[in-house]
């Protein structure tokens, strides 16, 4: 037994020693250590997490080579090479809090950038604020982050979900879609609940007297929607709205198409561009979809967009979707902020406070259009968005997008200082549409 005991102690000592060894300070050569958090496994990996990671790898690789187009031609961030530390967002909010601490305190990253899940964003934001470290949220949708709290060190470089739903209603109105009755199916967590609330509120503004019939909130990752589809088909509303995404959306479309739901109701999906490649001809024609921005097949031509679209396609074999764009715009925004801070401090690697000051209220060009940090005292972005209808192209065996319409950022996002839901319910005052 003594040998066991010694072996046991030795093992404990070794593991403690190993853990100390890993806290050794970062390499002497100066790099910009960027923690990147995105889904590498789990339900959101395929649709969002992995495209986002591929986007990050492409952009960081290009930046470190100095190969990005103007105005991003400087190597890395202002001449400092970017060293990414990529970790998995899967495992729940509680786990992410611990992982965020590890990134800042154990791995000594300069900035953490990422997060797709709304629940994760809500949980990690206050931790970064307490640790006084910069956190850039790149994708999550819930408007609550900056509406329920005030942050100095936290930024979101993409518009929140209000834009997706206000834009969707504006698109439907522009295309004369009839809607006297409405049904909805959304996941039972922050993203689904907030999207639903915004859509219903916006519908009541532009379609006065619209009646909400079946209103379903299945569990995230439910996978089987047989009963829900019966209820939706039974209700037979003019429009069926959903903010489902990823595997859940695919399962829903696969199960509902044979049961005649698209024939009875106009389907409108607020975030569906990423399921078009896997679904192919299973996606019913004429479905109205959004991509949470002017992204992918709905993106507008520009040198920056060509650079991302073609370069990403060459590197990964598929075209970039929403998450790749959002990752790109977050990294470019951080680069712009770091370089702005370096212009001020004489070219040194900027401190967290200098970066925060530079990022606040920043505007920068991205493949998806101009991003402006206009809301929440310069911490929350607004951006333009596009919507369209699907049409399967049997010759190319892929879904084409037709009837594309763009909306300016200030047409679909609330003005500063107003809560999104109050803005919608107040009649969307101050919206600047072309």
């Amino acid at each position, binding site marked *: 037994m003594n040998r066991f005991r010694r072996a046991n102690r030795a093992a404990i000592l070794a593991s403690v020693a190993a*853990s100390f060894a890993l806290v050794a300070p970062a390499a002497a050569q100066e790099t910009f250590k960027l923690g990147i958090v995105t889904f590498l496994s789990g339900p959101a990996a395929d649709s969002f997490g992995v495209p986002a990671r591929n986007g990050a790898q492409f952009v960081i690789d290009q930046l470190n080579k100095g190969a990005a187009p103007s105005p991003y031609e400087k190597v890395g961030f202002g001449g400092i090479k970017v060293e990414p530390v990529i*970790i998995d967002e899967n495992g729940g909010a509680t786990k992410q809090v*611990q992982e965020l601490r*590890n990134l800042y*305190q154990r791995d000594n990253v300069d900035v953490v950038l990422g997060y797709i899940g709304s629940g994760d964003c*809500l949980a990690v934001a206050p931790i970064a604020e307490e640790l006084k470290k910069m956190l850039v949220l790149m994708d999550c949708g819930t408007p609550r982050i900056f509406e329920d709290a005030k942050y100095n060190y936290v930024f979101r470089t993409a518009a929140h979900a209000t834009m997706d739903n206000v834009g969707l209603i504006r698109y439907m109105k522009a295309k004369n879609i009839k809607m006297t009755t409405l049904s909805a199916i959304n996941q039972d967590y922050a993203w689904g609940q907030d999207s639903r609330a915004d859509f219903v509120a916006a519908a009541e503004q532009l379609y006065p007297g619209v009646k909400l019939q079946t209103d379903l909130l299945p569990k995230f990752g439910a996978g089987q929607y047989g009963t829900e589809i019966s209820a939706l088909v039974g209700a037979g509303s003019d429009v069926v709205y959903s903010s489902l995404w990823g595997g859940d959306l695919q399962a829903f479309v696969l199960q509902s198409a044979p049961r005649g739901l698209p024939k009875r109701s106009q389907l409108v999906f607020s975030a569906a561009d990423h399921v078009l490649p896997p679904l192919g001809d299973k996606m019913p024609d004429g479905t109205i979809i959004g991509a949470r921005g002017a992204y992918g097949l709905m993106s507008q031509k520009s040198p920056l967009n060509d650079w991302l679209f073609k370069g990403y396609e060459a590197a990964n074999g598929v075209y970039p979707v929403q998450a790749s764009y959002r990752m790109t715009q977050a990294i470019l925004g951080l680069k712009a902020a770091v370089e702005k801070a370096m212009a001020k401090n004489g070219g040194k690697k900027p401190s967290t406070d200098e970066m925060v000051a530079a990022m606040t209220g920043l505007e920068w060009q991205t493949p998806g259009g101009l991003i402006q940090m206009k809301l929440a005292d310069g911490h929350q972005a607004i951006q333009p968005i596009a919507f369209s209808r699907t049409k399967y192209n049997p010759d190319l065996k892929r879904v084409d997008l037709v009837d594309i319409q763009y909306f300016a950022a200030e047409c679909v996002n609330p003005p500063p200082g107003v809560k999104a839901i109050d803005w919608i319910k107040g009649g969307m005052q101050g919206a600047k549409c072309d």
Partner: protein
Amino acid sequence: MHPLVMIALVAAVTLFGRALPTWTLSLATIAASNALISLGIVVLARTGNVSFGQGLFFAAGGYGVALIANAWGLTDAVAQVIVGAACGGLLGLVIGPLIARYSGIFFGMLTLALSMVFYGALVKTTALGGSDGFNVGRPSLFGMSFTDPREADFMLYAVSVIVTGFAGIAATILFRSEFGLASLAVRENNLRVEYLGLSANRIVSINFAIAAVFAGASGAFALMAQRHIDPQFAYWTTSGEFVFVAVLAGNQSVAAVFVASMALELVRSFSNLYLPNTWQLVLGIFLLGVILFLPRGIGSLWIRDRRKRRTAADVPLAAERGAAS
């Protein structure tokens, strides 16, 4: 080990936190808080019952503290631990007597079922944030608030190590007491215990309540460390991990619970970087190995040693099972 020695040990570990890097502090805080709930499972396991639903009390403590903190601004760390322990304990007092008459698989299954009922209720309660949960503010201590992240982490570390340490000392004393030995007897044969004039149900209920108190306090720590709570606290896989620690530790040594908990947290901490898709596999194989080769847990590595020495010195064996360190 004499209780005074143990108190000195707790003090030493607390002060050692001063030398630890910041990220290990929060890791150790979580490990200590998980050790506390697993200790509760060990206490209960001495009556032969394994609870697969400690997540229930863990979540009850966490949500109780979070609600009171947000409603009345109670931020004191020690007060929060007491509130958490009280929430868990009260629930344990209600549930314990109801399920004390079951044993073995039925006991495990009932506890699991109850925690899943709670989980289902939490997920559907939008007022509590539904499946997203909600955030709470930073804890303070005796009127001091800590704005420096390192000081705040150390404060939490110190409180959790001290509370868990004292819980460990209390458990050790309990294990050696008449009640603790009677609990072991319930595991061997509860009918014979009844013949001796003791109530097996009552013994199980009391142990259950103790485990619930520990779980509630542990929930309070988890909340303070993460500042966020969601229904995952009550999900069965969360409870499963605590059982894992308890099995790994065995029911002979309190110290083993701490070692097992720290080991699990270290593995978890590095798993995301080095074994993202195999760490459950490693845990599973490890668990099988422990059940097969060390049926009394890693605690038996050093406890068995001592027993041999005692036998050599002709010490009566009667108290062997009660030995704990």
